[in-house]
């Protein structure tokens, strides 16, 4: 039974989407109930998956491997791609995060008026695609899910978004497609350079991440063979491949010079879609680097760690400064996401168990925090249809419950000890500092400059709190003056998120049980992989 659990998790939303398409458009409220039912089933499946997962064991579990495409390519051998799903200590928490966040997003979409049928169908397709991306262990399958997210997201922003939704959705699509083309280039180069068995007579080109990670499975004389040392425009092909992956996933993350789609997409997207975008889709960038770029190109990753860390630090500082300058509350939170994703890059670049676990912890923690932040903006926006910080003041007296939720979310995001954001950033810093003295990848100055980001984070959040919540109650004249506090439905969404944030802040071990084995294995793979290739090159 448990061998099919991951497929089940994928199938439930797809079946739900089909069911929805088959349902006549008479009862408009029916669709949200179907979506919620799907989420409930997925939560049950998730509990089953968690109960079957063994945290004391590193590596892939609950694997499901089925042949998908086997293609004879004549003299080039055989192309083989498998339907290969599995989870490890990194995937499983992200899958769990996805299921929880999607449930909350569905509750948050309860009042969607404009064609609910299309909306929830797209949401369910997106749901399957996100989970599939985190579970796929075969590059082609991964790519399928990765690209499959684009269209539903395009329409979700473009149809249900705000005033400039069309511009934002096209920009989102083009940026992400450009990134995925870069990834596609590397995918083609990689699978044609990888064989699944050592059999010399018949080359089986494999898409499996496991094969790609092993230097012994690289076909000799392929372009990506380190010993072959092919250079393109004077730069090694492996460096090119790593850089393309870095840029491709960097667009998704988003990394600073490539981040400009994010604020637009966030500002224009409806609240539930912002939540999904920030909490899940951004994580795919970090996940891709952890799952693909680093383990497959360990030699280059170690060589270019300073670059990854540099972009991380730039994102941390730039994101924080841009957030400080934002007048729109949603834009502020979008930029704070950019800043927080910088920590993922920094932790990853350190290639220490602490740093890597911290990066993964940050992804999960930011998933909950950003979801909560965007929901809170949505609560305000639903009431007044205005998100300008300057138009509000003294809200704490009028909306006390709202204020306390906001306080918690802001403090979690700025890294108050006892909340989840703190644990994540602490570990990233530990890793980044340790790297300077153990594996000599990063200079300590990276970590020191990154701490500035924390100060800036505190500054823009506290300043926002002061502007919006303290002082005399006042909203801009033509806005609704009768602001009501959060209602039951909104509490239902915010409360679980608050609990997760607090629990992950106080009992980090709950999550670290999953992340630590992964982080240890990851660090080993990358460092050892880098060494192996170095040895090969010296021969």
């Amino acid at each position, binding site marked *: 039974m448990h061998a099919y659990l991951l497929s089940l998790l994928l199938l439930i939303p797809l079946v739900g989407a089909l069911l929805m398409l088959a349902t006549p458009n008479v009862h408009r409220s029916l669709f949200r109930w179907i979506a919620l039912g799907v989420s409930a089933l997925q939560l049950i499946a998730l509990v089953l998956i968690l109960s079957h997962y063994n945290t004391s064991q590193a590596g892939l579990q609950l694997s499901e491997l089925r042949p*998908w*495409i*086997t*293609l*004879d*390519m*004549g*003299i*080039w051998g055989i*192309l083989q791609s498998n339907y290969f799903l599995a989870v490890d200590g990194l995937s499983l928490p992200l899958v769990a995060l996805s299921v929880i966040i999607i449930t909350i997003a569905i509750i948050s979409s309860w009042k969607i008026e404009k*064609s609910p049928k*299309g909306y929830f169908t797209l949401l369910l397709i997106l749901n399957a695609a996100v989970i599939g991306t985190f579970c796929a262990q075969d590059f082609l399958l991964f*790519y*399928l899910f990765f*690209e*499959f997210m*684009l*269209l539903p997201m*395009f*329409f979700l922003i*473009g*149809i249900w978004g705000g005033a400039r*939704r*069309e511009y934002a*959705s*096209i920009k989102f*699509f*083009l940026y992400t*497609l*450009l990134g995925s*083309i870069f990834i*596609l*280039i590397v995918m*083609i*180069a990689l*699978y*044609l350079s990888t064989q699944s068995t050592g059999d010399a007579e018949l080359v089986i080109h494999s898409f499996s991440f496991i094969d790609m990670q092993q230097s012994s499975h690289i076909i000799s*004389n*392929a*372009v990506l063979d380190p010993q072959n040392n*092919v250079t*393109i425009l004077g730069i090694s092909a492996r460096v090119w491949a790593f850089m393309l992956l870095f840029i491709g996933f960097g667009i998704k993350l988003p990394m600073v010079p490539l981040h400009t789609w994010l604020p637009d997409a966030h500002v224009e997207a409806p609240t539930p879609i912002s939540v999904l975008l920030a909490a899940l889709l951004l994580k795919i960038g970090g996940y891709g680097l952890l799952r693909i770029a680093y383990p497959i190109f360990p030699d280059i990753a170690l060589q270019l760690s300073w670059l990854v860390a540099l972009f991380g630090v730039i994102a941390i500082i730039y994101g924080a400064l841009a957030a400080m300058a934002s007048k729109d509350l949603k834009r502020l939170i979008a930029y704070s996401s950019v800043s927080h994703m910088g920590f993922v890059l920094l932790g990853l670049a350190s290639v220490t168990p602490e740093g890597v676990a911290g990066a993964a912890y940050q992804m999960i923690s930011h998933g909950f925090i950003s979801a909560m932040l965007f929901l809170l903006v949505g609560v305000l926006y639903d009431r007044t249809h205005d998100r300008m910080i300057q138009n509000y003041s003294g809200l704490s007296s009028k909306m006390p419950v709202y204020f306390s939720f906001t306080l918690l979310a802001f403090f979690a995001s700025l890294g108050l000890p006892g909340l989840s954001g703190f644990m994540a950033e602490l570990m990233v810093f530990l890793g980044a500092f340790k790297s300077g003295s153990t594996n000599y990848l990063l200079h300590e100055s990276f970590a020191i400059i990154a701490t500035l980001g924390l100060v800036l984070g505190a500054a823009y959040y506290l300043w926002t709190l002061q502007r919006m919540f303290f002082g005399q109650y006042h909203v801009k004249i033509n806005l609704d003056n009768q602001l009501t506090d959060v209602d039951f439905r909104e509490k239902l969404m915010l409360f679980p998120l608050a609990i997760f944030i607090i629990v992950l802040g106080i009992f980090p071990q709950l999550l670290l049980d999953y992340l630590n084995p992964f982080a240890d294995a990851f660090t080993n793979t990358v460092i050892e992989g880098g060494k192996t290739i170095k040895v090969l090159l010296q021969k």
Partner: protein
Amino acid sequence: MQGLADKLEWIQLSIAYAWPEIWLCISVVLLLFASLIQSNQNKWIDALALMAFLISLLLSALQFAESNTSMALFNGMLRLSDFSIYIKVLIDLAAVLTVFMSYAQQEKKGEYYALIATATLGAHLLCMSNHFVMAFIALELISLPSYALAAFGFQKKSMEAALKYFLFGSVASAIMLYGMSLLYGITLTLDFTSATFQQAVLYNQSYFLIISVCMVLIGFLFKLSSAPAHPWAPDVYEAAPTPLVAFFSVVPKLAGLSILLRFMQVLSLNGAASIRWYIIIGLVAMLTLTVGNFAALLQKNPKRMMAYSSIAQTGFLLIGVITLSEQGLHFMLFYATVFLVGNYLVFWYISFFEDRSISAIEQYAGTGKNYPFASIMLLIGLISLTGLPPTAGFMGKLFIFSSLWSSYESSEGMMYLLVFIVGLLNTVVSLFFYLKIPYQAFLKSESQVLIIKKSPLINLLGFILVMVLLGLFFMPSGLMGWLNRITFAL
């Protein structure tokens, strides 16, 4: 020297292998007779045409099922190989789909179908041609009916387009003919697959050869509507009836592609040639991709946009000619199949919406709400042409770019890498215009009252084509298994 009796016997034996072509000849005559006795609203002519093309499809498919050798027919004028038979199957399939689309054609049906059948026959002959004279005749057999068909809108605009097409076509043919005569001067033979020809090419690797070959290429590229011989396409596509546009964008292209491939294969002399022909084709492909995609961005008319799209798609098809390997050929045929299905799907629904007086991209606003099914099918077609999963278009792109990468890997020619990168980046550009219609359909609300007309039959065929596109994504091995049979030998 062969005796006359031998030649006659060869012709006699060849007839058994030319049934699809003979049947097409008969069909032309039948359809012309039908046109004599037609009156308006004659559905039986449609049925007759459909039957004619179905039979020729069946005959070609039977040939593909039984033959697995390559043989010369009619005194070496034609050569029947698995490759050309497969192209013939695709051409007949396109013709059948064109008949399905032509249900709205009212006037002069008999002539209309007779001309299509003639062009189809020309395409059949072109993809088997082995000989310059045969190639020229076959090319003109496609071109002349096409000029007439382009004018079938019977409006000033379509007359203008037809004239433009005719002038371009005649100049291209003239240049090609001149190139052929120069090649005859070099090689002293018109049979370009013969050993004499290859020998002569081997000893004459000179600029003179390059110039003569480029002249011949102009004629082939004209049929492919590939840059720099493309400017006729947008005008003709815009003015001609939609079913014919779909026909023009596939049939001459496939026929031109197969003769081009054969010709390049000969010239490469199995790699012994010192002239690197793939660089010329690579430049043409990159130019075609870039011109097609960027020009498509500016278009406001869906058919004109699709004209540039089909120019851009030619660039992807040319990759098979660049790699010139057996596997590259199989992948090119896979791509061609997927392109055919996707392209027909898109034109199918463009004609569907045209029927509801939606003829500019802007007028598609709100169709997503009023025609959800049709709009989604159209979206899938466009996505497949862009090359995004989960459609077969993605598999096609993955395959042809894989073959390009393999060529790069084995030879490290920068040209391969350049085409690889330009091609993939062009995919991003192409998304921009392929999304234009869905963008209007789903993101904008209607500005005019849309006429709601139900047509389940059209949607059924659209659905079948979509299923093919999805099926070929999830299970490409079936079709590839068939294609893998095709050998690369001359």
